[in-house]
């Protein structure tokens, strides 16, 4: 019943697949003319922006498109058998045993009311008809395989008792229970932290090799695809636009969209002046608003009227490369090696005097140990921020990096006055504001310190026009004497964030994510903010939009000499735009220095691991693989001694188990570069760079 070993053709062969969703209003063609082939043991990556139809392809392969989705053309062959005409019984037989699928949200894909063991054991019990005890034994093996600690206990737990990373490993284990020949992964790591993501990806790769599984890996992250796949397929608006081996597509791309995509993402290996980010102009077309001819036409630099918009563009072979195809009429005419046209680079103002100073800032939260039935029970202290000290200057960008729960957002809240500090001081222009909650701050201070939030979708009032919302902010900051003046200022702000003035009368729901984020930025600058805390301002946006928003922030900074505190977990972007970097782990600042100092050895061991975890979409970069074991400890009961001690690979080098006993003191390695680690200077000096660019 399981893998049929005699078959050696392609595992999956998708030919001219078209999928539509039928709504009351219209037919939505989500995928059109999509072809792909996966050979045994091969991993195919599918990349593209949100809404381009990646998930729809995956669900189409599984034949699970819901009530309103239908395959309207083409064929899907699994091991030579046509899947579109299979009966439900045949499909059931294949699902879970031969094709398995892993989704984006691990928590949602596990049954909350069923023990992990039972959910795992179910798979072989259905497909191989083995007994429950035997299936449990198999489950135990697979759980051990996915490197979960204490597998026996995990089998007995319910999903909510595991962390996000552990849940994702369970989902992977579930997919591997029957040793499928094809594994479909739909953005399996987007909900996870970078270091956890790196470990999960490593695991998937190893297991794929071990079991000889073919993979269809869906992601919007080019770097991840580079690390996991052999071949890649770039999708744009429902179509595959370029297809080929990783090397061909990454180094000899033959489609303008692929090129634009690569140019819009920061590469930590490259110099930011030599290779600035170039945003893709315009917006992604909705499925029912696609232009005639080439879908990418309106945004393409090489667009040729009368040709590109006059016909259906077929997929064509690129001669000389193996199975490399591109959906562009002009790919053989374009000079792919021409350097990008860069708008003249504006010099950034040098950092001025210190505007913000944190001195030994501490923030502890008290939480009831038993939140549900509160009342009695002992209180626990969560140390969200532990002795933070740093300075930020005028027109400087200070990046704060770290994974979830490291205290980045708490710090932002204290600065904004949404929380008050437990200890220590925040000095704004030498005035202490750390203990003044926002209601008691004067208008000037409130207007001076503003924030741009991670999720542009939650922060705008859905029932107020964009213009009104900005004018409200102006009112609060007491800018302008009357409505007319404020209206004028609001229009100027729209200009500032490069939104058409007509947008003033739009409702938030009529804007795209990137546009909403621009409104958020306009609001933050309404009172001429001098310090802007940007809490992951681009992580909820699509790659092509990220570049535009990032550039906007930097441009406004240049003009207004703003101090930007840029909170992010994405080291590529941090390297691209910040002057100094602060690395946090479990409430401690473990490293602080200029961008060059932090990105080059000597590193703090955590920074080293973080750097190695960043997926980089550049074939010329060689990266050291450092996989962190385990999860980030809970802030409720942090480890003794050094906070990073449970996952540190350098720990053995420190004599006398000091790391487990004492919190290291912060020490200065070089001018402006400090780390919190017990390693000696000599040991630090031995560290090798994590990211190296292979000599061309």
């Amino acid at each position, binding site marked *: 019943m399981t893998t049929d070993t005699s078959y050696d053709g392609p595992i999956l062969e998708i030919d001219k697949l078209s999928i539509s969703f039928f709504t009351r209003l219209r037919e939505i063609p989500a995928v059109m003319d999509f072809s792909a082939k996966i050979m045994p043991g091969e991993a195919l990556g599918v990349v593209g922006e949100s809404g381009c139809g990646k998930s729809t392809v995956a669900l189409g392969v599984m034949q699970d498109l819901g009530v309103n989705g239908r395959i309207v053309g083409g064929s899907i062959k699994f091991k030579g058998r046509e899947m579109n005409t299979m009966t439900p019984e045949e499909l059931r037989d294949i699902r*879970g045993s031969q094709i398995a699928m892993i989704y984006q949200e691990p928590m949602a894909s596990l049954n909350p*009311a069923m023990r992990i063991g039972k959910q795992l054991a*179910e798979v072989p019990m*259905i497909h191989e008809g083995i007994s429950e005890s035997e299936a449990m034994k198999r489950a135990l093996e697979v759980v051990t395989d996915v490197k979960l600690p204490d597998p026996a206990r995990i089998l007995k737990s319910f999903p*909510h008792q595991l962390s996000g990373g552990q849940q994702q490993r369970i989902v992977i284990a579930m997919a591997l229970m029957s040793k499928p020949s094809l594994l479909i992964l739909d953005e399996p790591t987007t909900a996870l932290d970078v270091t956890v993501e790196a470990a999960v990806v490593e695991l998937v790769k190893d297991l794929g090799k071990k079991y000889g599984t073919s993979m269809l890996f869906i992601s919007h992250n080019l770097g991840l695809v580079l690390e996991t796949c052999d071949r890649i397929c770039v999708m744009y608006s429902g179509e595959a636009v370029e297809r080929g081996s990783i090397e061909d597509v990454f180094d000899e791309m033959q489609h303008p969209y692929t090129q634009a995509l690569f140019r819009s993402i920061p590469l930590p290996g490259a110099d930011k002046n030599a290779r600035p980010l170039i945003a893709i102009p315009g917006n992604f077309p909705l499925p029912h608003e696609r232009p005639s001819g080439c879908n990418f036409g309106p945004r393409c630099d090489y667009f040729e009227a009368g040709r590109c918009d006059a016909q259906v563009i077929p997929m064509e072979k690129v001669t000389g490369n193996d199975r490399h195809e591109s959906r562009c009429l002009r790919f053989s005419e374009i000079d792919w090696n021409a350097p990008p046209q860069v708008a003249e680079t504006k010099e950034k103002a040098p950092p001025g005097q210190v505007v913000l100073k944190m001195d030994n800032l501490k923030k502890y939260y008290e939480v009831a140990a038993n939140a549900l039935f509160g*009342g009695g029970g002992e209180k626990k202290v969560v140390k969200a921020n532990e002795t933070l000290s740093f300075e930020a200057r005028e027109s400087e960008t200070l990046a704060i990096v770290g994974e979830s729960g490291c205290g980045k957002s708490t710090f932002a809240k204290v600065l904004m006055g949404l929380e008050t500090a437990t200890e220590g001081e925040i000095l704004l222009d030498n005035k202490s504001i750390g203990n003044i909650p926002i209601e008691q701050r004067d208008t000037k201070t409130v207007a001076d310190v503003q924030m741009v939030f991670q999720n542009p979708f939650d922060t705008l009032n859905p029932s107020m026009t964009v213009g009104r919302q900005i004018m409200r902010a102006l009112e609060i900051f007491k800018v302008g004497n009357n409505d007319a003046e404020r209206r004028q200022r609001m229009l100027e702000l729209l200009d500032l964030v490069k939104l058409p003035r007509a947008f003033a009368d739009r409702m938030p729901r009529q804007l795209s994510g990137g546009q909403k984020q621009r409104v958020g930025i306009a609001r933050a600058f309404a009172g001429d903010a001098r310090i802007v805390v940007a809490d992951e301002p681009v992580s909820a946006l699509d790659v092509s939009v990220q570049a535009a928003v990032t550039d906007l922030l930097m441009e406004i900074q240049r003009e207004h000499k703003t101090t930007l505190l840029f909170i992010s977990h994405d080291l590529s972007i941090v390297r691209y735009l910040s002057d100094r970097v602060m690395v946090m782990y479990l409430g401690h600042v473990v490293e602080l220095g200029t961008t060059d100092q932090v990105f080059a050895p000597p590193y703090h061991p955590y920074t080293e691991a973080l750097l190695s975890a960043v997926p980089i979409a550049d074939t010329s970069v060689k990266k050291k693989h450092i996989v962190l074991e385990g999860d980030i400890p809970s802030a409720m009961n942090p480890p003794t001694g050094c906070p990073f001690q449970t996952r540190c690979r350098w720990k053995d080098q420190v004599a006398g188990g000091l790391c487990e006993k004492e919190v290291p003191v912060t020490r200065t390695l070089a001018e402006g570069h400090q780390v919190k680690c017990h390693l000696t200077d000599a040991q630090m000096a031995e560290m090798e760079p994590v990211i190296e660019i292979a000599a061309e």
Partner: protein
Amino acid sequence: MGLFILRRVGVMLLTALCLTFIVFWLTNLYPNLEKLAKTQGNFRMSDEAVTSYLTNRGYQQALPVKYGQWLGVLPGYVIEGSDGEVRSRCEEGKTFCGVIQGDWGFSTVFKDNVSTIVSTRLGATGKLMFWVMMVMVPGALLIGVLAGMREGSGTDRTLSTASIVSTATPEYVSGVILIAVLGTKVIIDWDTIPFKGSATSAIDDANFENFFLPVITIALYGMGYIARMTRASMTEVMTAQYIRTARLKGVSFPKIVIRHALRNALIAPFTVIMLQFPWLLNGVVIVETLFNYKGFGWTLVEAARNNDIELLLGVSIVSVFVVLVTQLISDIGYVFLNPRIRIS
């Protein structure tokens, strides 16, 4: 968990105190007392006679004092009446005699101890409720699950309409219709009438013939509501991501419903089922009266009609407890069904 139950019980006692006090106050309003005096004494009593009758029997004491005595936390009155007779609330040798001590008083209508009446009648109603639950819960869940399993299908639409109709029909309507159709020859000319329109004999010997109609009347009314709750929760669960996971694991549809969806879908209706108890007690009053089944609801009606103060109080205190206890059970049950809030 212990602390949780303890707190709930505390709240429950407090609620019970408040509610019984209100009932006590209402039944002890002067017009009610006057009526009591006249029914117990004679109907042509003068106003003075009424007053002395009430004074002699402790009814004229301050309300909180009377309530305290009834509860059993204050010593019962001993009054030397205007007629020279000494009357006391309690029997010889007892100072406290109230609800707490088990002295629930004496029913003026049934000429029996309130506690005996309440317990036997409650037993009778318990029997009725048991059968109602046996019919209603599985029926409602089955309908809800079948309807919610495939949203928008023909089965769903038929069953949903049926449940709405059944909840929208009050018991006194459905009861009368059922009696007319199944309990008489009025509508259908039966050879032998299948069910009895009266359930009086079911007290001692319940059988299909005399018990089916009252049971189904109450069950139908509650069933629609639970079924719709179950359906809503089932449709929601069926669109959950983990159901898709199960489907893509190759689990067959019936197994998805039974193994993966059911438990998650039952969490919400479970609370509703428990909350139905007090609500069904309303129906019990109507149905027991309609079918002349001498249970708790019927007793309540009789007590109220005859101004039987002690009995009315007894009945209300028991009702309050039934309501609160079912709520407690529903909370605990919820915790058990839903592992996410299981207390460590």
